[in-house]
């Protein structure tokens, strides 16, 4: 298939359809509004359903209902809107229903600003809503990767019966890059299963419910969810390694920030410095072991620098990966400011004089 030049948000919308999603519920917010805008035109063309809900709270609960009925469904929003969805996400995870949520992150906290940020990292990777649940979280660094990860997101959602979040910064949404859709047309529907509420005539009733007043029953649910997240941690970690394999300085970054780091690393390597990049693609499960393996192979005295568009959130996962074996440096800008390649290169030179 040939490549087309597309804005990230629109490409994500098309990718959802190619992945088989034909039910979208959402509410507009910059910088992701082109996703619902695109889907409200495209979904009726493929026999799908588009609903602009009255709020993000309503949208996520419409997703809850559609997922319970066993259809591939999704919503998308940006930071403040994702906060509003926290309650529904917890219920969807508790009921073990599959869905995809896109967070095109903007600057916060509060209403913040509409410029790109990565400040929802804690929110995305640490449960988001209440209770012992997790989202699986995917972080694309290009429009093409965003498209490819949408297919993976729907597959993982169905495989693990759990919400999957595609977490990108506003730049991915607003940027145009060439993309190739690897699948043609509308993707496959949800596979036959034993949990969806499809009408019980001729079969035993199924119940979707998250209320378990007996603590033993609730605990059993907690344990089942935990086993699921452990399984995902074993089988689903994804990451990219770039630059020197045994670097004197390892940068860790995700999303667009990782690409900015690549340019800075290219500069530093041209100057003779040995620098590498570790880029988690799954933010949850986080690729602790592969990151640690690189740290362990680095020369003695080698350094690690975590770079984010936040005040320092993923840096705690890098520290967990290091388990105290190395000091982890941090550099970040937030509020809608994005560290430039030159600013990152300056940090690299300061750490590797």
């Amino acid at each position, binding site marked *: 298939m040939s490549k087309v030049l597309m804005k990230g948000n629109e490409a994500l919308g098309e990718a959802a359809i190619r992945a088989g999603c034909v039910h979208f519920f959402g509410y507009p917010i910059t910088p992701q509004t082109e996703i619902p805008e695109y889907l409200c035109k495209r979904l009726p063309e493929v026999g799908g359903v588009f609903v602009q809900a009255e709020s993000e709270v309503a949208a996520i609960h419409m997703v809850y209902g559609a997922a319970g009925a066993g259809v591939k469904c999704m919503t998308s929003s940006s930071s403040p809107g994702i906060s509003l969805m926290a309650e529904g996400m917890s219920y969807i995870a508790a009921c073990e229903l599959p869905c995809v949520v896109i967070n095109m992150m903007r600057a916060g906290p509060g209403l913040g600003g509409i410029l790109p940020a990565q400040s929802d990292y804690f929110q995305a990777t640490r449960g988001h809503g209440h209770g012992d649940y997790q989202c699986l979280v995917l972080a694309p660094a290009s429009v093409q990767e965003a498209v490819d990860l949408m297919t993976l997101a729907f597959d993982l959602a169905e495989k693990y019966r759990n919400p999957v979040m595609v977490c990108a910064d506003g730049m991915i949404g607003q940027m145009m890059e060439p993309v190739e859709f690897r699948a043609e047309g509308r993707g496959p529907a949800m596979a036959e299963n034993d949990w969806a509420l499809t009408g019980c005539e001729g079969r035993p009733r199924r119940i979707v419910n998250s209320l378990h007043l007996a603590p033993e029953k609730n605990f059993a649910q907690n344990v089942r969810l935990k086993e699921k997240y452990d399984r995902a941690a074993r089988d689903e970690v994804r990451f990219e390694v770039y630059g020197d394999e045994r670097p004197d300085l390892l940068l860790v970054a995700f999303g667009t920030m990782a690409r900015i780091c690549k340019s800075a690393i290219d500069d530093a390597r041209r100057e003779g410095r040995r620098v590498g990049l570790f880029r988690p693609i799954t933010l949850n499960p986080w690729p602790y072991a592969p990151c640690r393996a690189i740290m362990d192979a680095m020369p003695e005295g080698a350094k690690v620098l975590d770079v984010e568009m936040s005040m320092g959130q993923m840096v705690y996962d890098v520290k967990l990966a290091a388990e105290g074996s190395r000091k982890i440096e941090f550099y970040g800008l937030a509020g809608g400011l994005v560290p430039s390649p*030159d600013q990152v290169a300056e940090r690299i030179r300061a750490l590797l004089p």
Partner: protein
Amino acid sequence: MKATSVLMAGFGGQGMLLAGKALAQAAMAEGLQVSWLPSYGPEMRGGTANVIVCVSKDPIASPLVSRPDALLAMNLPSLDRFEASVAPGGTIVVNATLVARACARDDCRVVRVDARALAQAAGSERAANFVMLGAYVGATALLPTRAAETAIADEFRDGRERHIAANVLAFRAGVEAGSANEVQA
């Protein structure tokens, strides 16, 4: 070709984002890697807008660029803001219609074009954005002009085909001005 980044800036409504998209489309059609990263924010008509287009044979690392290889400045605020950031040896295309002052860089190639006059002569004052793109392509030979003309025409294939001729002619006028390499005195 060498990897190239172009910062295109002007007032909102002057069409620099659209001209950038045509550049990206043309480069993609030539088999190159491209990225098109707009400034986005609480913008309004008459405010400033800019886009960074990266073109490369290899995958593009950062779509955000600290030192662009070229600046296309459609108005004075764009020149004031971005002139210093252009990489040494780069190209600066200035819209002489709106920018009276000389460019302060003596280590860059500076091309001044009267974008409005050339666009008017081509048939539409609103095509000044493509005069600027033409001047850049003419000055650098970054892409075959044919590829850019096709990309420009494709922007109007949605019921607005009557605008194709003027916009392509404006681009050609820009190419001519750019390749004449009217370096600032």
